[in-house]
Each structure stands twice: as structure tokens, then as C-alpha cells.
């Protein structure tokens, strides 16, 4: 059964690897965004799905990541391979800070506090004009493939591979971490904080860490989107972005890694798809989908698929056990 799981991951990795050769360049470009959004939503899977803390303000960390890369590149000439980890560190530290505040808030109050963060992000970015370029935004240098690959692949394809390698590494890391002691502690706090304490888990420490960890992921996602766009501006990081990330997480499946991946696909393609029906519809569709999923499929698409596959798998295992 474990082998099965590895093979499905391998097939996916293969698909990611060869896809740019069979789709037009702009489609590879869109898939880069899927990877970035999946990383951002992975942060929500950790924070909300695993640890039970709600954040409606992850767009802010997305923005911090984007601006970190832009400022580092433009003002200090820091190259991509260094600026993305730095973006993760900056948003991670700010996430830890918010995590400390979040300790005192729960449920709807935490949702409101993080929502306020999302609301305040664009005007805060405009305020520090000398650093952020104000409402005009900042240009981000594009990423060209390294020497030997020059001319072999386009810069869009290169960014695609870089993004998916980062995404793969982060998914692997997260899978290992959540499968072990850390994941158990986070889940224990989510399910019953008092019980978790009695098992020796320090909720303060873990909850703060979860915020920092997931904010770092959002920062990386924001950094990649900024590089792909070639531009950052304050009005990119509105409440709508934060809500889109949450919607993607809920629709995809907020407590599984596959859910994060599906969430990335949803955030990227749902608005494009819905636009074909009615230009003004995306936010309406987001809202309706969110309500319907919460009522009928609270585990999201990923859990629903598993629910279909799982009974079969269960039966097979019983069969194996008998024989």
C-alpha cells in the first residue's frame, strides 16, 4: 500500500516533468502559478487543517514574500536562489509574531484579527513608499535559465521547473514532518488542547510555530508569483487573495497534502473558467462553492476521492490479511 502511494507521487512527478514539452508556453506559465498557489495552500493545510487555527490573512504573507524578493533584487541585487529563502525567513518571522498574538484569540476572533491583517496589507504597503515604491509597485527581474540550458528551454519553462522542484521539496518535507511527532502534536492540539497538554505537548509553542511555518510557505508562494509576474503592487494583495487561498484550501481538502495541490489548481483555474460564463461571476462562484462544500463535502475534493478509493483499499487489505 505504501508502494502504491509512492508510485502515485512518481507518476505525478513524471507528469510535472514532461508536461511543458506538450503544452504551449503560456500553459506552462499557468502551471507555475498552480505550483506557487499549492505551496501557499500547503501552509493553510498545516495551520488550519492540521493545527485548527484559522487564518483569513495569508495574502499578507504572500505579499511580504513578493515584496521581499522585489526589494532584495532591486535595491540589493540579491539573486533568486538567495532571495526566495530570505523571503521565506522574513514572512516566517512575521508569522511567528502573528502566532504569538493568535495565542490569545480563538475561532471567530482569530478569523477577524487575521482578516484585519488582510484588509490592512495594501495600504501598509503603500505607506512605506521609499521601500515599496508606493502604489506604482516595483519591478521584479525575470528569471532566465542558467548557462547550459540557455536556448534549450524558455525562461517560462525554467521558472516552471524551479517552482515545481521547490513545491516537491516542500511537500516532501511537510509530509515527513506531519507524519511524525510534530504532526501528532499539532493534531492533538487541534482535537483537544487539554488532552494534548496532559500528554506533555506545549500548545503555545506549537501553535506559534505552526503560524510561522505556514507563513513561510505563503512567503515562498508569494515570491514565486512575484517573479513570474515580474511586478509587485499593493493592490495584488487584497482580501480577495486571502479568501481565494482559503477557498482553494477548503475546496481542495484542507487536511491533506493532495488537497493543497488540488487547491492550487482551483485557485488558478476556477476564476479563468468561471469568467467564460460571466465576467462578474468568480466571487459569487467562490462563495457558493465554499458554502456547498462546507455543508456536503467538508473534507474537500481530496477527501471525497479518498472516500471512493478507500473502501476498495480496505477490502483488499482485509483480503490480504485473510490469505
Amino acid at each position, binding site marked *: 500500500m505504501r508502494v502504491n502511494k509512492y508510485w502515485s507521487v512518481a507518476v505525478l512527478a513524471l507528469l510535472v516533468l514532461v508536461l511543458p514539452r506538450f503544452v504551449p508556453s503560456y500553459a506552462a506559465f499557468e502551471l507555475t502559478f498552480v505550483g506557487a498557489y499549492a505551496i501557499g495552500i500547503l501552509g493553510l493545510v498545516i495551520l488550519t487543517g492540521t493545527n485548527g487555527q484559522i487564518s483569513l490573512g495569508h495574502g499578507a504573507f504572500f505579499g511580504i514574500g513578493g515584496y521581499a524578493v522585489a526589494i532584495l533584487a532591486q535595491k540589493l541585487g540579491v539573486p533568486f536562489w538567495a532571495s526566495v529563502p530570505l523571503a521565506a525567513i522574513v514572512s516566517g518571522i512575521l508569522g511567528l509574531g502573528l502566532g504569538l498574538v493568535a495565542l490569545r484569540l480563538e475561532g471567530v476572533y482569530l478569523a477577524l484579527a487575521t482578516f484585519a491583517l488582510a484588509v490592512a496589507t495594501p495600504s501598509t504597503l503603500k505607506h512605506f513608499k521609499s521601500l515599496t515604491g508606493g502604489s506604482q509597485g516595483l519591478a521584479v527581474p525575470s528569471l532566465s535559465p542558467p548557462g547550459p540550458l540557455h536556448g534549450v528551454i524558455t525562461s517560462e519553462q525554467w521558472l516552471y521547473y524551479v517552482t515545481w522542484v521547490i513545491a516537491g521539496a516542500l511537500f516532501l518535507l511537510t509530509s515527513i514532518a506531519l507524519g511524525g511527532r510534530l504532526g501528532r502534536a499539532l493534531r492533538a492540539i487541534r482535537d483537544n488542547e487539554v488532552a494534548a497538554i496532559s500528554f506533555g505537548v506545549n500548545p503555545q509553542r506549537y501553535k506559534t510555530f505552526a503560524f510561522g511555518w505556514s507563513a513561510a510557505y505563503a512567503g515562498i508562494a508569494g515570491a514565486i508569483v512575484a517573479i513570474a509576474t515580474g*511586478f509587485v503592487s499593493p493592490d495584488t494583495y487584497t482580501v480577495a487573495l486571502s479568501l481565494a487561498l482559503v477557498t482553494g484550501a477548503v475546496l481542495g481538502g484542507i487536511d491533506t497534502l493532495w488537497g493543497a495541490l488540488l487547491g492550487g489548481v482551483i485557485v488558478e483555474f476556477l476564476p479563468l473558467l468561471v469568467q467564460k460564463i460571466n465576467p462578474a461571476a468568480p466571487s459569487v462562484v467562490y462563495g457558493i462553492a465554499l458554502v456547498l462544500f462546507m455543508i456536503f463535502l467538508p473534507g474537500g475534493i481530496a477527501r471525497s476521492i479518498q472516500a471512493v478509493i478507500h473502501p476498495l483499499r480496505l477490502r483488499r487489505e482485509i483480503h490480504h490479511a485473510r490469505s
Partner: protein
Amino acid sequence: MHVRNRPLAATLAACFALSLGVGAFAPAAADEPGITPTEILLGGLHPYSGPASAYGAIGKGILAYFAYVNDKGGVNGRKITYKDLDDAYSPPQAVQLTKQLVEQDKVFAMFDTLGTPSNLAIRQYLNDNGVPQLYVATGASTWGSDGAKYPWTIGWQPDYQSEAIVYARYLLKEAPNAKIGVLMQNDDYGEDYLTGLKTGLGSKSGNIVKVATYEVTDASVASQVASLKAAGADTFFVFATPKFSIQALVAAAQQSWHPRTFFNSVSASATILGAATKAGGEDATKGLITTQYLKDPSEPSWADDAGMKQYREILAKYAPGADPNNGFFAYGVSIAFTMVDTLKRAGKNPTRKAVMDIANHLHETDNFLVLPGIVVETTPKDRFPIDQQRLARYDGTHFVPFGEIYAGRGRGR
């Protein structure tokens, strides 16, 4: 697991090699993209959702005008298809949708994408690929002034700086020793206006006795207005978005301050001034001065104007349900007129290069929604299609144009 891993790794490696080996797709070297014997395909982006969705009306105005032109036979026998997508005022979406429009839909040109950030984000890509980025809907000055670096990009409407220059010129003639107080939004939009004002005043820049700024998050601008009054200003410049503009006018009236007021065109609509008059009394708004370059559809004096009648007929037929008094529809129809004009002049076999060349040599005197006397005009050295404006004074119920036509950037007329 261990044993299984080896073939897996081998497969991955093989596929990577394969993926590099397959040749790149050769672009279809053929005729001009987006042009068929029966169709011209244009792409555009407007925020139909998100914080700036009010501007979506511009896109609808454009679609209405293109439908009207197509019904009349199109442009040189071709119908215009305008693929107008929603970028929600978000640069990442704008970049993706633009690549899709250029690479998948193969649009001939991008036309009237709205918003400074979105246009800045797609400018490099479009210029790298030689795709015209025509008549962008933003008031930043870079569209006209950076033509050497971005030859495939051009704006349309007057930029904020040139509007402020017009105020300065008028003021220098009326009251060369006015004491000027400026209220401005603390961002690039406000800065653009202030820069223009200083440029226009030239050696008289010292006439500005105080500049008070506000943040978009401020609750009120009353204290800023008080500080301008206290500085002894007798002339009041309002470079602010609608909400703060209303507050500024009302605050001045409440503080019994009655300066000569200049009011940025961004906020100068009949609805906004109606609200300010209601809250602050007639004294708050009467006599204030703004600029106009388009006919204001909510202005009753245009009711019998042939151009305005045509505009109302087009909207009624091709955009039923649209409120013709909304100036954004008029903006859309008017800018679409310039686009059609450009395509017409490009002749039977339009090319991207030819269209850009025409955009750099505009001389349009018959745009039916542009104020009479104003010419939509460019030269390769002056890439600001509209920079003539007319002053208008608010008489308590509507705007009355007066005086000559000003050219913001000093282009001779």
C-alpha cells in the same frame, strides 16, 4: 520500497532526458496574428470583479461601440472581435491573461487595458514580443514619456501632471500672487498632480504656502483643511479621490473658509458634487474649477448634441441596461472610436507595425464624445493622444465650460 525505487528513478531520469530532447515548438510563421479575411481580434483586460470593478463599465462601453461598428460593416470589411477578460485589477492575473491572449488566442493587439499596475506588469512582455499595447486606460505619465524604451505602448487620456499644469497656467493668469494650499493623497497619484502643479507654476512655485497630505486610511481630512486655512492660503487645490474630495469641500465650508478651489477631474462628477452640496451647502461647491476633455453625459446642456445623441443610441441598442449618465461608458465608447479610427487608417492589410505607426501620428478631430475643439493627436515626439483640456466651473448644479482650450504639455495649437 528500496528495490522498487531504482526503476522509478531510472524512469524519471529517462523522462527528463526525453523532455529536453524533444524539439521546441516552432512558431507558425504566417500572416499577421489576429487578422483573418473577416476578423480583427483584439484583447483587453478590465476589472469586472474586485476593488476596482466600477471601471468595468469602460469595457462594456467599448464592446457596445465595436458591436455598433460591426453592424455597420466593420473596419475595411473585417469585424472586430474584442476579447475582454477580467483581471480583477491584479497584475499576476493580468500577466497570465495577456500571455493567454497573445499566445493562445493570438490577438492582433492589446487595447485599453485598465490600471497603472496591470499595464506596467505586461508592458515588458508585450514590447519584447512586438505586440501593440494601445491606448491604455490610466493617467500615469510614463505611457507617453517612455516611448523610446517601450515603442509598442501608448496611452490615451490626459495624464494627471498635464491636468495640474492646466490649472497652474490659468491661475498664473488670473491671480499670479495667489497663496496656494494643496490637499493631496499621499501616493503616486497625488505626487503626479503636485509635480504637474509645480511644473506649471515654474518660478512661481513659491506661491504654494502649504501642502497637506492624507492617507487613504484616514477617517477625515478636516484637520488638513484647517492647517491650509491657518497657513493663510486663498487658493485650494484638491487632489483627492471622491470620498476625501467631498470631505475637503464640506470641511472648508464648515470652517468658513472660502478659497478659490481647483478640484481634480478624477472626482469631478455631478453626483459627487451633488453630495458635497447637500452636506456642506451651496457655498461648499459653487465656483470650483475642474478640467474636462470628454462631454459629460450627465450634463443637461449636451442633451441636444449630435454626438451625445449618437452615444445614447449606441448604448441603448448595444448595451441595454447600461446607465448612459455614467461617464465610464462614455469613456469606453470614445476610446473605442480612436481604436476603430486607427484600424481604419491601417488599411486593407493592417500590420502591428503599421498600427503603431498610426498611433504615433494621430490627428483625430471627429471623436464624437471628445469636447469640441480638442484634437486627439500624437507625433513620434509627443505621444500623449489627449492632452488638451478645457476648464469648467461648477455653478451649483452643473459644470459650465469656460475659457480657451489648454494644452497641458505646451503642444502648440
